[in-house]
């Protein structure tokens, strides 16, 4: 690595341990308090990566990670720091981070993970990713959805919801999980939003495929069949 890019660090101020580690390891970094600040302070060549600590403000931290990922040029790698009690929060947020480190962290471990992630991010070139289930096919590169080869016209949020479900077939999700993982906490629409979008997806899938998304009474929704048989 010839030119070390600047890392963006959340929250501001960074915890003394994180600040110390980054300084000692020779990283250039800047702490910010929110996505807007990250946007404003961003160097011309973009952020080289991010260290997001969930310890003090987990909701703010995940919203921050989401903002870094859901922009035109997503920031990679993103390393999240979680406490032992927060490990469950990692579930179904795979798109929001590249690696994580358990807090309180061992400085050598975080440094090693950071370097490795930076190396991976520098070297990887991703091709068009596809999600397929039955006749349904989602091209994650072009955002196009087709059913039995016929285009399915979706709005952005319908597409995001279908993508999330299709990536996790057979799993039952509560409305809260769908809302927090697909829309993010900053969304104000409430859990009814999920029902409404499910209805719209079913309408667009058409009568014969509407049951691809099943209502699991008093729990939530499931896409397709479980990989593990009945559940």
């Amino acid at each position, binding site marked *: 690595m010839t030119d070390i890019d600047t890392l963006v660090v959340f929250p501001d101020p960074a915890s003394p341990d994180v600040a110390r580690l980054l300084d000692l390891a020779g990283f250039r970094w800047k702490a910010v308090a929110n996505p807007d600040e990250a946007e404003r302070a961003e160097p011309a060549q973009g952020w080289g990566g991010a260290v997001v600590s969930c310890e003090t403000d987990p909701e703010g931290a995940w919203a921050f990670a*989401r903002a870094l990922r859901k*922009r*035109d040029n997503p920031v990679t790698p993103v390393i999240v720091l979680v406490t032992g009690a927060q490990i469950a929060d990692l579930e179904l947020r795979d798109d929001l981070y590249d690696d994580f480190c358990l807090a309180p962290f061992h400085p050598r471990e975080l440094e090693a993970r950071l370097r490795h992630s930076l190396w991976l991010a520098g070297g990887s070139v991703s091709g068009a990713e596809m999600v397929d289930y039955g006749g349904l096919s989602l091209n994650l590169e072009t955002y196009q959805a087709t059913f039995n080869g016929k*285009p399915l*016209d979706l*709005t*952005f949020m319908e597409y995001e919801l279908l993508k999330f479900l299709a990536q996790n077939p057979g799993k039952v999700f509560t*409305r809260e999980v769908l809302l927090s993982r697909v829309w993010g906490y900053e969304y104000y629409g409430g859990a009814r939003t999920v029902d409404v979008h499910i209805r719209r997806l079913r309408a667009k899938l058409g009568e014969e495929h509407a049951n691809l998304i099943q209502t699991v009474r008093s729990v939530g929704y499931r896409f397709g069949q479980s990989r593990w048989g009945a559940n």
Partner: protein
Amino acid sequence: MLDQQRDYVLRTVEERGVRLVRLWFTDVLGTLKSFAISPAELENALNDGMTFDGSSINGYSRVQESDVLAIPDPNTFEVMPWVDHKSAEARVFCDIHKLDGAPFEGDPRQILRRNLDAARAQGFEFLLAPDMEYFYFAPPQPGVAPQPLDEGGFFDLTSSDVASSLRKETIRTLETMGIPVEYSFHEDAPSQQEIDLRHTDALTMADSVMTFRVVVKEIAASHGVHATFMPKPLEGVQGSGMHLHMSLFKGEANAFYDEQDPYNLSPVAKQFMAGLIRHAAEITAITNQTVNSYKRLVPGFEAPVHITWARNNVSGLIRVPIPKRGNPSATRIEYRSPDPATNPYLAFSVILAAGLKGIREGYELPAEADANLFEMGDDVVEKLGIQQLPQSLADALKVMEGSQLVADCLGEHTFEWFLRNKRDEWRAYKTQVTPFELNRYLKSM
């Protein structure tokens, strides 16, 4: 998130070979306005908006500055299903801004947004489901009464029924466009149809009502049939309403539901209803905005006349439908006066404002009127302290003019413009000599 939404729209345009993107917005009277741009202009439009001269749009003209900015809402982007695949077209709803970036006060969509923000500040999300009624006629000819396609009654279905196959095609198209349908049937009157939409948030629903009117008319027109949302097109049979089922949600919970109450209505629901009842007359010019609207609001045709509520009485203004058992989220009220010729953005705004005022100020809900008021004499009704809805557009405008609630809800610009425009409509109507008068007086006087 917004960046990704824009990206999603741009990629879809490219991948689907969309040739034309229609930017949709609504004038103050609820007429859909549209201009088309090429895909090449779309990126710019999404980022910076498109400037246009608003002076020819109803309710958009201003004294100092006529240019306004249309900024597409990328979440409403839809490829239109009725155009053939080789030259796909798409539409996207726009929010109208002033050139300095502030929301334009004449844009109904912005007005609804502002009112929904107020509800959100109180922790409420406003959900609606309209029952859309309309008629199919043979293409209209000047001076000839509307010609129904059939003489079918309620739930009448025969294989040769043109209207029902039109309705089916309409529903299929609506569903492809992400507008789920709950029920549909042939209504009481000849050639009258009803399509009930599934509930969603108020902004999406207002957009859906605009789309609905276009889809119904387009599909009818493609088969040489004229669809109309005119509130009372035929004398002597019932007119077309747009009954609105509504509820407020607080997070996951329906704020209208209370397990303890005999009707399962929470204090919030009752105060919301009380707000609607107290301010119903003030908001009627918005929910029923044409001269013709008031010919529907007469006794004997299942349209409300009196400002009352009841559990199950179709003559009342507010009905409290019995929700399916064990489903608190279906608890709702049905506001029955609006007609489908209204501007949905403004109608939803004033209804919400009236209801929220009831909640904020803790209004007391009057007693239920479970008797059929149509069968009572006017004197009896009056003794019960029951008010009537305005009898004409002129009456409705007079009440609206004195309403601080409606002025605050719509904003000064739209409030003033609407009153001015509708007074003109009333004046134009008042000077007409009608067939009624000629038939009644010409010979005998």
